[in-house]
């Protein structure tokens, strides 16, 4: 077995026993990337020289000592590009580290490689990247999901041991499901957003992509905690997220939201998720039906709130302080042309929608109303959590779709996020883990099981996920790329 296919925890053991070294681990990635990334296109750039210098002096006794971690191109790493998949930031070089990067470095990890993404994290397929789409390692004619599609694809293709992504409406969990890896979106406020280029500030959260549940716990251990530079980060104690792994599921209650098991789900996805639920019963968990009555409104609420926040956040790309500039006759021409030429179609669509719902006369009808319905969605979750420890459901209604299938139908693309969006609106934690495969056109396509946990109860969520993973073999399947 190649070094590149190891999990973080396996690599850590081999590094500590001196069976291998951080430089050898990096060399193994370089060989693997050279072989498969021309097909996958999960990376936008890689800086081997900087990573090798860090690997040579890495302290392997630290929690993530000497482990290279791939980073979505929306998180600032000092000295590296941070294009956000956008032409407007082509050529930008970050001159500071995001807090999560500082924390990864403190844990001994080596930030290595910039992962492709939908422009400014807006999309569900990575087709909105200005630098070409990424491919699903299980079937390159299909999308890896998005917006963190590059992060998911490089982990699934063994081009990375683990990666960081960001999740605003499912951008970690949906690509993790479509690529067959583990993806965790922490509770809002669990992880600092400082240095994450903002899309929708009340929804964005950084989280890990990993090959195993234990690895997700190891990464969350490193990146969690209150940060004075992000005033929305919360001063909750950070437990050891590996501590509950291996505990049994006696007394654990899982809720099946009846609104999530209705028509429109691919039959193979439905069957795999129902089989996973029966498996949980056999492990001793109790399955309870719960109701999230405002589910049907989640996509509508999300596309008002997220676009409104995006239209304000993206106002900073004006050609003055960073990024490209076009038009020089006067200030208005410069703003209009810089943004008109620098942004791609999906970003423009969302800026228009967000500006509209915030504009005079429409604010109350759209934005304020959406915020009120958001309250109802959050209440749905909080009352479900009075009865259950976690909610269990599909991550996506369908496995990976063909590239080009939805790129010109925004509404259809938006509806792909129907099961992941409500978790961000409620502000709680959620994760996706592999639970089977769909057979389509003779190809195996991964299916994701979503678990949504109570706010700040990531340790419980990881315990529940780990029990399933360790008693099934799905995570051992390797993408054929």
């Amino acid at each position, binding site marked *: 077995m190649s070094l590149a296919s190891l999990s973080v925890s396996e690599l850590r053991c081999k590094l500590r026993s001196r069976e291998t070294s951080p430089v050898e681990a990096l060399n193994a990635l370089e060989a693997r990337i050279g072989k498969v990334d021309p097909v996958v296109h999960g990376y936008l750039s890689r800086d081997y020289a900087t990573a090798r210098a860090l690997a040579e002096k890495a302290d392997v006794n630290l929690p993530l000592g000497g482990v290279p971690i791939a980073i979505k191109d929306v998180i600032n790493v000092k000295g590296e590009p941070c294009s956000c998949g956008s032409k407007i930031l082509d050529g930008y070089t970050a001159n500071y580290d995001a807090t999560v990067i500082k924390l990864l470095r403190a844990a001994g990890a080596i930030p290595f490689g910039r992962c492709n993404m939908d422009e400014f994290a807006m999309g569900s397929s990575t087709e909105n990247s200005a630098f070409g789409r990424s491919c699903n390692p299980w079937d390159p004619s299909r999308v890896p999901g998005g917006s963190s599609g590059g992060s998911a694809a490089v982990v699934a293709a063994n081009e990375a041991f683990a990666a960081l992504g960001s999740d605003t409406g499912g951008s970690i969990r949906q690509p993790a499901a479509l690529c067959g890896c583990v993806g965790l979106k922490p509770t809002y406020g669990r992880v600092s957003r400082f240095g994450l280029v903002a899309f929708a500030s009340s929804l964005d959260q950084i989280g890990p992509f990993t090959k195993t549940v234990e690895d997700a716990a190891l990464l969350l251990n490193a990146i969690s905690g209150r940060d004075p530079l992000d005033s929305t980060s919360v001063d909750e104690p950070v437990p050891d997220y590996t501590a509950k792994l291996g505990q049994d599921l006696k007394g654990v209650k899982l809720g099946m939201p009846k609104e999530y098991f209705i028509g429109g789900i691919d039959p193979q996805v439905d069957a795999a998720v129902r089989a996973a639920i029966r498996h949980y019963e056999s492990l001793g968990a109790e399955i309870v039906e719960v109701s999230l009555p405002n589910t049907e409104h989640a996509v*509508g609420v999300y596309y008002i709130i997220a676009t409104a926040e995006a239209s304000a956040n993206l106002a900073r790309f004006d050609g003055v302080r960073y990024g490209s500039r076009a038009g020089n006759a006067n200030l208005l021409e410069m703003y209009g042309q810089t943004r008109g030429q620098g942004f791609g179609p999906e970003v*423009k669509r969302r800026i228009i929608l967000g500006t509209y719902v915030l504009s005079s006369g429409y604010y109350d009808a759209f934005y304020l109303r959406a915020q009120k319905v958001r309250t109802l969605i959050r209440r749905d979750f909080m009352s479900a959590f009075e009865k259950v420890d976690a909610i269990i459901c599909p991550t996506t209604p369908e496995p990976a779709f063909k590239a080009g299938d939805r790129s010109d139908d925004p509404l259809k693309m938006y509806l792909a996020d129907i099961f992941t969006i409500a978790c961000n609106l409620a502000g709680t934690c959620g994760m996706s883990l592999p639970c089977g495969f769909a057979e389509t056109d003779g190809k195996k396509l991964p299916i994701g099981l979503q678990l949504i946990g109570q706010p700040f109860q990531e340790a419980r969520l990881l315990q529940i996920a780990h029990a399933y993973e360790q008693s099934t073999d799905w995570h051992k399947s390797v993408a054929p790329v």
Partner: protein
Amino acid sequence: MSDQFDVRYIAQLARLDLSAEEITKFQSQLGQVLSHVEKLKQVDVSGVEPTAHANHVVNVFRADEPRDWFTPADALSNAPRSANGLFIVPKVIE
């Protein structure tokens, strides 16, 4: 809905130049999205407080003290145009 929703006007508010093709396309695509969003008008939200943030946060303050941070050179390092330690922009005042 779509008669009030004027992409050309919104684009001006957003300082975003769009081509004629983009205006036509967005008008129809976003019209569909807005009809989907219309469903929210059926929800009874009387007496419901809006949620701006998932966690209830009030203002967070820190001491207003100088600290090590960007130098002027750092701040200008990605500027499309700069000179004499300043961002250069087109003339603003005639």
